[in-house]
């Protein structure tokens, strides 16, 4: 306990030293403020963002709101298709064999490399952004649901069969619950992918959203706003992921939550 406090103190001290160093460096004109935004500027920028907004009229809260809604739309759409589809593919070996190469291929395509094509198909509006997020989340979730269903401990299946539990009952009461931890792990990773994709997806055709905020700040040499955008995305991602972990502990109280996603 005491050792942990000391370690935390040293870590905080390091951060304070770096922030102070940047602050002094800029003040003494050794560093340029747009290359190394000092803490005081970041605080000012945050106040500006909460009052006037950047660009003027768009506050940080509406950036956050727009981004979260976009991520949730794409994420929920991806879950809604990936979960039932994965549960089907994982249960039918023939389907699994057929789809493996496709899934590996599409999963490997960097989501943002699809941007030009998706713009051609769906324009530069809302739909394009949501589709890109959904695409990124979908393949990660799909492969985890399939793996969860496919790699259920055979000892559990054998035990169920010994009690004359077969077919649909076996699937519903043994295979699905056994696959849940892996599905939750996949859902966590997929959400992280959503947050990674959002900045790129918001690069074009909008001035609202955290990704747009970061791009806009770049054109005006407002590096401190970019840093704020990064920080807010990080904090949001952390909060939502913690929320999912809490939900998992609530829904799976038997402690299956140690499973790792791939």
């Amino acid at each position, binding site marked *: 306990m005491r050792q942990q406090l000391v370690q935390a103190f040293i870590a905080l001290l390091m951060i304070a030293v770096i922030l102070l160093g940047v602050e002094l460096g800029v003040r003494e004109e050794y560093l340029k403020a747009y290359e190394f935004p000092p803490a005081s500027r970041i605080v000012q920028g945050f106040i500006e963002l909460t009052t006037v907004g950047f660009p003027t009229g768009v506050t940080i809260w509406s950036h956050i709101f727009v981004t979260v809604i976009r991520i949730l739309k794409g994420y929920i759409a991806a879950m809604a298709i990936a979960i039932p589809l994965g549960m089907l593919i994982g249960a039918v070996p023939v389907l699994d064999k057929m789809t493996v190469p496709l899934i590996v291929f599409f999963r490997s395509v960097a989501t943002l490399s699809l941007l030009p094509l998706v713009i051609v198909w769906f324009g530069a509006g809302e739909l394009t952004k949501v589709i890109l997020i959904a695409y990124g989340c979908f393949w990660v979730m799909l492969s985890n649901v399939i793996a969860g269903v496919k790699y259920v401990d055979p*000892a*559990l299946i054998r*035990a169920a069969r*010994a*009690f*004359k539990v077969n077919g649909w009952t076996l699937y519903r009461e043994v295979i699905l619950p*056994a696959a849940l931890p892996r599905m939750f792990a996949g859902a966590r990773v997929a959400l992280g992918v959503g947050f990674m994709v959002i900045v790129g997806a918001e690069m074009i055709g909008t001035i609202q959203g955290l990704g747009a905020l970061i791009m806009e700040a770049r054109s005006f040499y407002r590096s401190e706003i970019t840093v704020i955008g990064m920080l807010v995305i990080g904090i949001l991602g952390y909060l939502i992921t913690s929320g999912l972990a809490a939900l998992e502990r609530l829904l799976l109280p*038997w*402690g*299956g939550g140690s499973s790792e996603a791939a």
Partner: protein
Amino acid sequence: MALKQSRASALVKAGIGPDAGLNPVVASPMIDIRHVQKRFAIRGGGQTVVLENISLSIAANQFVSIVGRSGCGKTTLLNIIAGLDAASSGEVLIAGQRVVGPGQGQGMVFQQHSLFPWLTALENVAFGARSLPLGKAEKISRARTLLELVGLEGSAGKYPREMSGGMQQRVAIARALALDPDILLMDEPFGALDELTRIEMQQELLRIWEARRKTVVFITHSIGEALTLSDRVILLAPHPGRIAHDITIELPRPRSRTDRHFNAIYEQVWRGLAS
């Protein structure tokens, strides 16, 4: 290697009584394994014979252990009796009925980690009765009685990861009893437990066996365990799996491992395995 059969004395031990003992063949066995062979295809063609012509009759209420080295086909034989695996040729009869699948009077206790982690102790035991046409309340009350039998009434709401290995195997035994089977098939159930817990569980199993009178087929690596528990010990020899010895243990229970007779039989079994 002579095959030693002493079925008559085993039947007398099992409580059929001296009258039945006059003509033991009349009493039809609980488990009748007839010329069971199990082959597996090997990659690139050819076959490997796991079990070669196994014939074995087990009387009702008898406690039989099957001992042998790894790879001698013990678990395969148990799975065939359980109806989880099919013999390549030959057949198994339970109370005169040919085994075609699970649920014909077999209750199964597996090695560790066969409980469903998402179910509590009580729900795991109730799952054992899943295929019975009973209401949920009846299954739960049956499960509660069985948890009491294995001494775990206080842990009904615990998940498997909250229980020790010994407690988990008690739950597994209670679950196996949920279909009220005539036969308890046990696949190295105590193999992963520490020595002290293991000895406790052996005493516990004998107590349950006295209380519920089942026919038990018990697979183990441990000669000591087999001799402590069984009316009869079957030694399997590997490559291909076949019965090498069939030894009847007539020592009274509870048995002491330091007993002279116990040690004499231990020697005999040890030599049987080593040969």
